């Protein structure tokens, strides 16, 4: 994009954001209502969430549960999915069970998790992992199954062992599909993180938002939501940059074949 067009875009984007903020502030001042706090307390509450003490009580518990649950889901989904996709003969055996489990609305499992694990971190990590494992698993199965059969012939000629075939041929070939699954999994993981804290927790961002809503500390509620948006944005961008690095070969490959066709 040429520079002046980019500058003009930036101008309009800033203008829109400022206009909406001004509109918010104007209505908060002229029509005061409990659910419409002015901008200043919201900003202050947001900044205070970043103070070390508050951060450790509120943001950190959420993040660590998400990291463990989502991490488990990614590792488990990738490993299992790659193996299952490679062993095509297993597919008819597991397909109906998988097709059922993937469409269970993940929140429905929450009461069961509460029953089995109580209101513990294990329960929260479990629901985060359960919710985000299916997109990764199914994407990995799909990617591994649609892999390039000729490369497996090459691997046989080059005397690859089974593990080498899985990790050096099938897995790299399935990675583009797996990353697409991981992106979906991340947004589901975030949702499950919040829900598990809304329904039963004594720390974390979901708990913070719910408690402040009950205490009518509206500015804090909005600050908590903003913090969740920030976390979602940062994690999405981080994931995209990892993907860009890991899949550089894939984008080049596709770009070239697009240009040819």
């Amino acid at each position, binding site marked *: 994009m040429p520079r002046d067009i980019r500058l003009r875009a930036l101008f309009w984007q800033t203008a829109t954001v400022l206009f909406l903020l001004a509109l918010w502030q104007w209505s908060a001042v002229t029509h005061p209502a409990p659910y419409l706090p002015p901008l200043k307390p919201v900003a202050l509450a947001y900044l205070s969430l970043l103070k070390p003490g508050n951060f450790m009580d509120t943001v950190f518990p959420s993040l660590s549960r998400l990291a463990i649950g989502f991490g488990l889901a990614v590792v488990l989904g990738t490993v299992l999915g790659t193996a299952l996709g490679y062993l095509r003969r297993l597919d008819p055996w597991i397909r109906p069970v998988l097709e059922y489990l993937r469409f269970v*609305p993940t929140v*429905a499992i929450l009461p069961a998790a509460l029953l089995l694990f109580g209101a513990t971190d294990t329960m929260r990590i479990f629901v985060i992992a359960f919710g985000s494992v299916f997109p990764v698993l199914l994407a990995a199965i799909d990617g591994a199954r649609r892999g390039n059969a000729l490369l497996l012939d090459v691997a046989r000629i080059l005397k690859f062992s089974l593990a080498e075939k899985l990790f050096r041929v099938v897995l790299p070939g399935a990675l583009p599909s797996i990353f697409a699954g991981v992106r979906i999994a991340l947004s589901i993981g975030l949702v499950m993180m919040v829900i598990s804290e809304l329904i039963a927790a004594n720390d974390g961002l979901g708990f913070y938002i719910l408690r402040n809503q009950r205490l009518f500390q509206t500015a804090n509620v909005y600050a908590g939501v903003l913090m969740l948006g920030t976390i979602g944005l940062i994690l999405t961008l981080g994931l995209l940059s990892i993907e860009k690095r890991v899949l550089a070969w894939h984008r080049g490959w596709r770009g070239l074949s697009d240009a040819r066709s």
Partner: protein
Amino acid sequence: MSSTGKATIFASRATTALKGVMGVLAAFAAWEVVRQTGFIDKRDLPAVIEVMEAAYSGLVHGDISSALLETLQSWISGLALATVIGIAGGLALALLPGLELATRPILEFLRPIPSVALIPVALLVLGIGTSMQLFMISFAAVWPVLFSTKAGVESIDPRFLETGRVLGFNRAERVMRILLPASLPYIATGIRTAAAIALVLAITVEMLTGRPGIGFYIENVRLNGLTAEMWGGILVTGIFGYLVNALFVGIERFTLPWSPENRDA
């Protein structure tokens, strides 16, 4: 095709179905094994047959079925609202580049917010009630429709539009006769994704605010210690989720036989 060919296809389908049934039975067996190991209290993990009985009697005697109907109602209205707003918004963003540019930072920031986090906000503004439930479901479900509509319109081959111009279509005709039909496969996929999200939101709102529906049912029977009923409710919810997806795939196959997604199937 020769009759032996048909017989072979039938036999291979029968084997596939049999393997699938065996897989399901193996899952039931695994459930029973977990039960027997005693890691988890047996009262919390009833036998598969008890769960099925609870699900069946709930469906027949009306507890689960009436809860499902409630959920279905709010789900459909939320999804319908999200579809209308999403398509209109997606069209607007795709056709008005200035609008897209100006609102991009806001949309990019709103999108990754987990929609359930807004439930407390919605409670503050709208209180507990139908409008809050409707708002939450459609707010969460609008994004996939919006972005897939936009992607669909942007993916249209400009030659289609040139053809429309040659045929003398005006702007409105171009939208109705070319842009919308050509982006329907994208929109359909977006609506299918939105349907699943809307279902999750409907259930979540029911669980958190006690609105009648399957989510409230599951949470309520758990609080009353009726574990078989809880698992039965989850089982039925899963089947419902599966049917919702199957319904949308079926509609897409039927109404969009020319869509690239349906051609090879």
